[in-house]
């Protein structure tokens, strides 16, 4: 039996460095990634924490729908699979885990972890649940301003599936100071999963902008997992990555002054060098002088990187400005239906046959008075680079390669219209050009997400400790 102790190691204000590992960069990441990170944190000794980022924009809306059907669900489905191999090791060695796996139901996720702990022989586990990110019932929906990147978006007359504010690091830090072994949030700014333990450990003040900025830069580098250690990087012959089947996930070594090193567990694949760190530093960032987070406005224009050793890059020079007065919220709305159908043509004149098949589908749908939006790609010639109207494809006059897949996609209001579009791809089997094969079709309902800004004083994060009853 393992009796969990309080995670005193990160809660005391201290000058010793803090190691933070990241074992997951998105919902769907490699399930065996956290293990080597946890073992490296334990082997290094000293205070450390593990973050698991699993919550995308759309993931939360799907979770909200799931919870509506089954009230005890609505959290990350892979939560147990991620935690089972590492929970006992983390608890035994005092490595707290911070994760946004709570999605639409942080408390449900917390109860699941307590159940899992009991099956693993762990008692006395302290699971902190952070919520207050869901603003549907708070009246804050009335005070929303559309994010400028979404134009003049409005919620009037629409069914709101989910509306969640990106919470900052303060409730996570508070939970760790209360001795949590595990902190489970719903929507929180991804870097806050790393900044929370830093604030708990170093005692950084809430207006210590440069240190908070360093912490956010560090969390931003960690939050996509392997994307800073050689994942999403390999370009054979130009950017080669050792053992990409076994990339080690990142570990940051943060010092009290905000200087930090990005590294990875020894004996794993992947690499950490200035190129991998640069690419991730700018990932999903727009103005590099003003990256808005709930805790600080980050300026990375003064950041400098230095290779300090194999797979070790030092990062310094992040600067911070006062945190914004408004927080970002993601609102999810019904997004209609997507129907997709594909069929292959290969060998001589494949491009002409595939293009003809696409015209046949369009002509038939037009004749039927089809009301949806439609797009056709010739995969192997032009697909992902092109716009919906096919201008790039039309401009490509070369003879195509001889192995092409026609893809037709339709966005519709109703499921019936999506089925109508997909049927016209399926019927190409018998009625289309010669030699078509391998039809696959798919219909999914969609969720649309919009970003809004919410006044900070309308949002009230909560921290609750769930204690093991045993």
């Amino acid at each position, binding site marked *: 039996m393992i009796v969990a102790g309080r995670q005193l190691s990160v809660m005391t204000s201290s000058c010793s460095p803090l190691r933070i590992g990241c074992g997951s960069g998105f919902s769907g990441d490699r399930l065996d990634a956290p293990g080597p990170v946890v073992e490296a944190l334990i082997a290094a000794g000293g205070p450390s924490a593990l973050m698991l980022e699993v919550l995308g*924009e*759309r993931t939360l809306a799907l979770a909200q729908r799931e919870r509506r059907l089954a009230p005890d669900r609505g959290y990350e489905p892979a939560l147990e699979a991620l935690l089972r191999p590492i929970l006992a090791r983390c608890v035994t060695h005092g490595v707290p885990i911070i994760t946004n796996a709570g999605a639409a139901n942080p408390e449900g996720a917390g109860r699941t972890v307590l159940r899992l702990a009991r099956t693993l022989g762990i008692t006395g586990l302290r699971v902190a649940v952070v919520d207050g990110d869901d603003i549907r019932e708070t009246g804050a929906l009335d005070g929303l301003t559309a*994010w400028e*990147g*979404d134009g003049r978006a409005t919620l009037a007359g629409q069914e709101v599936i989910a509306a969640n504010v990106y919470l900052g690091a303060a409730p996570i830090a508070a939970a760790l100071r209360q001795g949590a072994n595990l902190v489970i949030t719903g929507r929180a700014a991804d870097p806050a999963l790393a900044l929370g333990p830093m604030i708990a450990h170093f005692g950084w003040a809430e207006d210590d902008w440069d240190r908070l900025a360093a912490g956010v830069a560090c969390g931003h580098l960690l939050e996509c997992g392997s994307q800073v250690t050689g994942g*999403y990087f390999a*370009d054979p*012959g*130009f*950017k*080669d990555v050792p053992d990409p089947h076994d990339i080690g996930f990142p570990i940051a070594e943060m010092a009290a002054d905000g200087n930090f090193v990005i590294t990875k567990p020894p004996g794993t694949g992947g690499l950490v060098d200035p*190129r991998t760190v*640069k*690419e*991730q*530093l*700018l*990932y*999903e*960032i*727009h*103005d*590099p*002088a003003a990256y808005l987070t709930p805790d600080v406005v980050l300026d*990375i*224009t*003064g*950041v*400098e*990187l230095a290779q300090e050793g194999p797979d070790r890059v030092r990062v310094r*020079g992040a600067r911070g400005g006062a945190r914004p007065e408004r927080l970002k919220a993601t609102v999810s709305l019904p*997004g209609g239906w*997507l129907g997709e159908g594909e069929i292959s043509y290969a060998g001589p004149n494949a491009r002409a046959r595939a293009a003809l098949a696409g015209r046949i589908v369009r002509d038939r749908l037009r004749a039927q008075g089809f009301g949806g*939006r*439609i*797009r056709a*790609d010739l*995969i192997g010639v032009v*697909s*992902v*680079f*092109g*716009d*919906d*109207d096919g*201008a*790039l494809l039309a*401009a490509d006059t070369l003879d195509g390669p001889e192995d092409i897949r026609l*893809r037709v*996609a*339709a*966005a519709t209001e109703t499921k019936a219209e999506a089925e109508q579009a997909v049927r016209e791809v399926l019927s190409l089997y018998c009625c289309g050009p010669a030699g078509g094969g391998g039809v696959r079709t798919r219909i999914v309902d*969609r*969720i*649309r*997400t*919009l*970003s809004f800004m919410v006044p900070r004083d309308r949002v009230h994060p909560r921290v609750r400790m769930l204690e093991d009853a045993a």
Partner: protein
Amino acid sequence: MSGLVTVKLHRLAHARAGDKGNRLNIALFAYRPETWPLLAEQVTEDRVAALFADRRPAWVRRYDLPLLHGFNFVLDDVLQGGVNGALNLDGHGKTLSFRLLGLDVRVPAAMAAGDESITGRTGKA
């Protein structure tokens, strides 16, 4: 000038794309610090806007990052609905970093001749 040759940006630089809603960013980094000024001169907002013209960006903005030998390009309204609304297979626009890397740039012939010196290629060829 006869001493210039045309190469793909891909030989000089690496890139990663990210999305937020309908807005795309592509961060571009010179493999070699000494090629950064050349890229600054040639990979302009106008040229990037022209490269992506068929996707009709509302605007293109380039942020310079000299300490990282890089640039951050932001292209507004090019994702036609973004990850949750687009008909494109790649609703995130993640593949578009390599569309940028397909841009032609002119480099001194001497530079292009010594491939390793401009590409920073590591390991085996």
